[in-house]
């Protein structure tokens, strides 16, 4: 691995550095994925722009609208933030199963999103939670709905130079429950073979008003099973419906076979995870 490392003092400074570089540069925050990829040679970059010392991109803030997570928030910051983890159990569950503590202390939420791995745990949880991504570029700032962020493995809709400044989570209203589940070969230190994040909002009558089913490692990007979500919305959830929703979610996946698991296994397991995830949310309500 060989590159020039440029230290950015602010988001604007980072954009300025980026504008002066030839193509092939990358932003680096925690580096827990990037450094490995560079060392393996699966990615090459002549220039890295280090975002890690940008103070404005750190920290978790809470206001009436919800929570704001600086892009440099680590997985451990999420885990240790009581308000955040109480409000979004799916996010807490996802943040707690990324690598070991060493990785969680360094890996960032911005990196998890920008890396755009279809198996990224926190990204899948944020997808179910309708996160909004504050993005900054040379031409100004914009807000990207998380579902609009991912294109395919390691590809996002971010324009060249754009960086993720923060992630916003809308305050959940009423009776809302979320869950995150993952499957791997081991019980820790796993890149998800399949993951599922479910977020369900219920009305006073127990009817599901809003449903989000986000799935990891079963397609080219973290994806939402939207047809399955529609089956839930406006319905009273029972075992029969859960089974139908899970089957529908499975039908919306296009898993691949790789050394970690076969497509057939992923397909079967995603159905099981969705079933289990919905049941968890329903049981809590």
């Amino acid at each position, binding site marked *: 691995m060989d590159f020039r490392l440029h230290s950015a003092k602010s988001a604007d400074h980072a954009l300025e550095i980026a504008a002066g570089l030839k193509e092939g540069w990358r932003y680096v925050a925690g580096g827990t994925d990037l450094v490995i990829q560079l060392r393996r040679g699966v990615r090459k970059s002549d220039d890295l722009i280090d975002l890690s010392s940008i103070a404005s991109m750190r920290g978790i803030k809470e206001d009436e609208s919800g929570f704001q997570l600086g892009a440099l928030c680590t997985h451990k910051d999420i885990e240790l933030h009581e308000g955040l983890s109480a409000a979004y159990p799916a996010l807490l569950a996802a943040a707690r199963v990324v690598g*070991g503590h060493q990785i969680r202390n360094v890996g960032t939420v911005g990196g998890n999103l920008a890396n755009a791995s279809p198996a990224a745990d926190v990204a899948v949880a944020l997808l179910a939670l309708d996160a909004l991504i504050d993005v900054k570029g040379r031409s100004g700032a914009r807000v990207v709905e998380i579902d609009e962020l991912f294109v395919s493995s390691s590809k996002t809709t971010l324009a060249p130079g754009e960086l993720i400044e923060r992630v916003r989570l809308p305050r959940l209203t009423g009776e809302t429950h979320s869950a995150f589940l993952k*499957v791997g070969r081991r*019980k820790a230190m796993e890149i998800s073979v399949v993951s599922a994040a479910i977020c369900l909002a219920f009305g006073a009558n127990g009817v599901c008003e809003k449903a989000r089913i986000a799935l990891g490692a079963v397609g080219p990007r973290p994806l939402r099973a939207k047809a399955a979500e529609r089956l839930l919305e406006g319905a009273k959830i029972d075992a029969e419906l859960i089974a139908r929703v899970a089957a529908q979610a499975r039908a919306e996946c296009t898993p691949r076979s790789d050394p970690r698991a076969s497509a057939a296994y992923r397909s079967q397991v995603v159905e099981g995870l969705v079933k289990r995830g919905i049941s968890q949310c329903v049981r809590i309500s």
Partner: protein
Amino acid sequence: MTAAKEFEVVGKRLNRLDGEGKVTGAAVYASDFALPGMLHGKILRSPHAHARIVRIDTTAARKMPGVRAVVTGASQKLNRFGNFIKDFEVFASERVYHVGQPVAGIAADTEYAAKQALRAIEVEYAELPAVFDVMEALDKAAPLVHPDWQSLKAAPIIVREGNRCSRTVIKVGDVEEGFRNSYRVYEHVFRTSAVHAGYTEPRVAVAQWTASDQATIWCNTQLLFDTQSTLAEIFGISPSHIRVIVPGIGGGFGGKLRLGMEHYAMALARAAKRPVRVMSSSEEELTAALFRQPTTIELKTGVDREGHILAKQGRIVVDAGACSGSGPLVASTGTMILAGPYRLPNANLEGISVYTNNHPNGSIRAPSGPMPNFATESQMDMIAEDLGLDPLELRRRNILREGDIAVNGQKMTAVGLEECLDKAAVAIGWDHRKPEHNRGKGLACGWWMTSRGSSGSYLKLMQDGTLTMMVGVVEMGTGALTGAAQVVAEEMGMKLTDINVVSADSLTTPYDFGSQGSRTMFAVANASREAARDLLGKMRVRAAKALGADEQALAMRDKAFWSGEKKITFAELAAQANTAGGGLIAEATYIAPAAEHDASRVQNHFSPSWPSPSFHVHATDLSVDDVLGEVTINRYVVAQDVGYAINPTYLEGQLEGGAVQGVGQALSEEIIIANGHVQNGNLTDYKMPTAMDVPKIEVILVTHPSVAGPYGAKGVGEPPTIQPPAAVANAVAAACGKRIMHLPITAEKILLG
């Protein structure tokens, strides 16, 4: 033995002698070792499974910044090597026969420069037909991995034919007759995958030539003297001109028995005329180390109505990879594990090793233990189920007991198997074998041997009254040398901390067969105890003279000899000897006696005698998630007949660690190979158990003392890795009814299988 006597040092849970350095970071490992002016070496490896090398051009690489030497098969004349067949080359000369085979090496100022320069080496290959499946490789029409196999030098015990590089047979009685008399005959095929040893310190070597025909190597081998002689053979120089030193080793588990990086470091250091360090990368570890061989096992067993085994026929086919390595030994020993610790009136068991164009494999902890044990013990449960018998009861009806004759004709003594079986069953709660839905319990029996091989020990009494023990083995972490020191301390009436251990320098320490085969503590302690007795005799003579007393009348306590109220301390004895001459030193060697067996039962067998056998039973209680197929181990019990526990703490450590290593092979670990290419060559995708994947391992020490072992001890290090795959497979079947016949038992196989 004299179990009734209370000992002062042996049998005690004392802290290991090398412990403090290891918890403070002061301990130096081979990977920490560096010399001034040292270069860094990297290896260029073949991308092809079988190809002719048409051309190698290193011109551009030599001009790269920082490059000091480039070595290829053509640039240095190096001899072939190999455990039993000389089928390894240091660098490929004309042909490559597996992916990852070294083709060239570069030494440069930095590792990075060496790595960059590798890309500048141009190699033109002409691909040749390759074979990856052992069964296909046995076909007469298959491409030969070594077309020149007949000209490759081999040990006399090796019987070869094309790609089949060895064959061993054990025969007892008449199996056909046995099958005819059987109430039921069961036939199954089992398969196991390659696994890595999993040591956390990669293989590393620093080599320095001190003269044109003399070199010193600092490395992390388990076998000093085998490394020394193999390097001598490769470089065509005298073994005593090669000094091998192990500063410290971060785990071995068999994966560091044979040459790792030593020969590359030596070749590069010779070319560069500078010290060179070569360290295996994580990727190289998982794509180009010596893995535990994958196997295919065919097993046919006939039983009577009560489940007594009447006949057993089996064959273990070992995928040696492109170089035979330990394949012949593993295939051979595998026949004993196929037999298992059972009474077999009729048996015909065959072990063959086969060349393929897969990566060469080697011996990992209990080299042929887990694979045939998985087959045999899985089948025992399948038989029990079919006969409607409790698997525990089926085993009780067949196990070897005191005085029984084993499959090799050896009369069994100190057999703790039944006690292990009973205690493990009670501990796991066998009466409630299926405590709830998707939860079940399984167990597996096994046996193993204490390998032979010579150990030596030099002792010297120091001027401060302590004792220095110099031995030629490597302390791999097992605590073997702390155990041996406890034995010496006991003999000498000293404290454990009075023993200074010097080890692992081929020039200064005595010959040793090495840290392998569950024999390190066993043999080193026996040799050292012998030496200690000799030394005490010499000390007693001097003491008697000094005190003007009769030798026999002297009492020994508190590191002194006493005649009434008069005493001379060990320190005074040493000082006196040092000034007056005739220093107090002693030496001894030990080799375990071979166990008597019936030679007419075996053909071309590497280990037909089974010295100081150990017996063991593992039992586990696990749950299977019926939606995901995931296995959760709730409890895991190891009952092992260890003979005697010299230091129960480190003995437990062996059993706990071995069991978890075995659980890794059972559930999650496999080197996934497609057409000779490893698909998961990193620790992200090679899945060793984490602390969350296993529960506390519950250990039961059973002690049926061995006659030969120190204080009755038996070899203990390898056995705990043997039974986990079978115990887990049986528990999975009990939990959810799925019988997995191919390791590892992944969630995917359970769910879709």
